[in-house]
């Protein structure tokens, strides 16, 4: 990504108000070719509303959304031309078959596909057998697979995915993840909202944390994991006091272990040395990488800085 490249997706001071509720507040964000942006936040944070505004389904109260520089709300057809999406629960016409649902979208996109090719597409997402069954009888996982087939129908340059892994079994999840990673490698930009943090962690190159309609944190260097040192000592209160006094960032786990954030790898032996010199009886110490889950929880429990313009 480079700042000189034109962003694939740019949100400019996007705001949505429903009567008295401010669902999304002055949100700005730019994504560039090949970005895989994890879009995280608790329920009600405004993620889905934001994604729906990006797709032109919800009208913003203020602000604008542009895809490749084209405003989604003034020129939706052109702007959404190369966009694929999975929106929360996947909705299809239950009385149509999987094949018919896919055919409907192909027609809308003005694409002509041979029947064999159509079946091939469904086969590729594991729906070969169920292609001619009505969607009414599909499981949640099968619906998600169909949603994936629809999202990828036209080699999208931008993928907007809202909880795309819902209902998928572990094998399908891995398959899906690999597919997304391959697409990102070819320059496809992905905005991924999911509560399955382990999946986001494996895919995302950037993170945006959202809370109460605002961006409360971001991480543009996700591939460099943040180091931590997990330590257990006999005198916990003394260690807590020691860490606080020296302004170390730390959390205390349920098993009496302290997780202390460190800036570089060389900080680990230095810290251990200091604890020994300070007279702590160390029961256990091991370096770990900070998980996305702990980052997420830290962002959501602390009062967030205002980083809406990212």
């Amino acid at each position, binding site marked *: 990504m480079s700042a000189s490249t034109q962003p694939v997706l740019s949100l400019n001071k996007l705001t949505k108000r429903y009567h008295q509720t401010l669902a999304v507040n002055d949100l700005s964000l730019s994504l560039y070719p090949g970005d895989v942006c994890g879009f995280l936040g608790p329920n009600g944070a405004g993620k889905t509303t934001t994604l*729906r505004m990006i*797709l*032109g*389904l*919800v*009208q913003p109260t203020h602000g604008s959304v542009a895809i490749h520089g084209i405003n989604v709300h003034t020129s*939706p*057809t*052109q702007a*959404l*031309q190369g*966009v694929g*999406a999975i*929106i929360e*629960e996947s*909705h*299809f*016409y*239950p*009385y*149509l078959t999987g094949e*018919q649902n896919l055919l*409907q*979208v192909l*027609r*809308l*996109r*003005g*694409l*002509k*596909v041979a029947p064999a*090719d159509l079946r091939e597409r469904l086969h590729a997402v594991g729906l070969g057998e169920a292609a001619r069954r009505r969607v009414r009888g599909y499981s949640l996982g099968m619906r998600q697979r169909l949603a994936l087939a*629809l999202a990828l129908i*036209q080699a999208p340059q931008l993928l907007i995915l809202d909880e795309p892994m819902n209902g998928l079994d572990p094998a399908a999840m891995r398959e899906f993840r690999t597919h997304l990673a391959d697409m990102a490698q070819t320059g496809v930009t992905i905005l991924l909202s999911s509560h399955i943090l382990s999946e986001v962690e494996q895919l995302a190159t950037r993170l945006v944390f959202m809370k109460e309609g605002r961006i409360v944190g971001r991480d543009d260097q996700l591939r460099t994991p943040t180091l931590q040192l997990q330590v257990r000592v006999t005198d916990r209160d003394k260690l807590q006091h020691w860490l606080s006094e020296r302004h170390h960032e730390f959390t205390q786990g349920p098993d009496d272990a302290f997780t202390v954030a460190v800036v570089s790898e060389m900080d680990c032996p230095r810290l251990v040395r200091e604890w020994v010199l300070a007279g702590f009886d160390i029961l256990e110490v091991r370096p770990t990488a900070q998980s996305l889950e702990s980052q997420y929880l830290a962002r959501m429990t602390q009062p967030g800085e205002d980083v809406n313009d990212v």
Partner: protein
Amino acid sequence: MSNPAGPPAFRAVFRNEIEKIWVKRSKALIIALIILIAGVSLVSAHTYHQNYQQAAEAAQNNQQAATQMRQQIAQTQRALKSVPRGKKRALQQQLAQQQQALQQIQTGNGGTVNERLQVRSLQNSLSTIPTQRGPMLEQLALARYRVSHGLISYNPAADSGMRLVGLVFGGDTIVLFALIAVVIASDTVSSELQSGTWGILLLHAPRRRQVYLAKWGAALLILWGFMLAATVGIFAFSSVLMGVGSTLAPHVVGTVTTLIPQNAGPSLVVPAQQIFHIIPQWSYDLLALVLAMLSLGGFVTLLVGLSVTTRSTVGSLIIGVLVLISGFFAALLGPASLLDPAVSFPLISDWTGTLAMQDNVRALTLGTGLAVTIIWAAAALAVGLWRVARTDV
């Protein structure tokens, strides 16, 4: 695979909508079509046979009455020869009256026999249904007018598959088609909004107004297809049961009646400038069908508008059915019934003057009926297009 077409064409959205309605409703529509064709044809055939029997009895009675009258005339003529000159004058008067009566009996041809029965039946009903006295007196007056002018509005001999089509779209049976319209159109947008498929649809076809118009067009096309299929089916099946009938049997249309209470009883006044149209059966049937397609097309527009405005299938269904039912209460609504789109569903009856007569509202004419239909449809279309562009998904 390529995308030369660029933005989705209206045709693609329209085709999708037709497919969706067809897959979702085809079974119900085919069953409804069969029931409608069979029901209308069988009920009409039953009524036809009853009326035919009545007409036959009436013709027989007529014949007996004529024979009786001839015998009386012969008796009077014989008496006339035997009575003295001074008493002849009274008998001559009696003979003239009898000959006039015979002439009247003889002019009671097949075409007006049932009109006479209708007059008799209306006269009997007048005393038993006092609440309907007004409209009934008008019907009575119109029936008398037709009898005296030899005009055929109801003729058992003309009862046929050909005639039935016009009757279906010019009478209460049209409500069944309006019900079909409710089934087809009232969930057009709301079901997609409620099920969440609206989002997927707009993602691939973001021009909302285009999607709305495609949905409206698809609902119209399916309803009109159903009406045409029903027309062909009713004509074919009832022709098997009652015969094809004459394509040229006359119909009187364009009557607007005025009731003038007089000492001797009410009478029908037809203004001098009144334009009567006596049109052949085929023309009447075709016009009835086209006008019904127009009025129910307006109703479909209203239902699609309701569907997007209420965002609820149940809501638009209930309102649609209420509008439909309101047509039955036109007589109670008085002049306000002019604004009710359901009153003018059978637009052909607006033209023939039947609605004005039934509902006691003179202003119910083809012009007002068309105007009301078009105004409601235009308003619903405008509101629907406005709402659909502003609905968050």
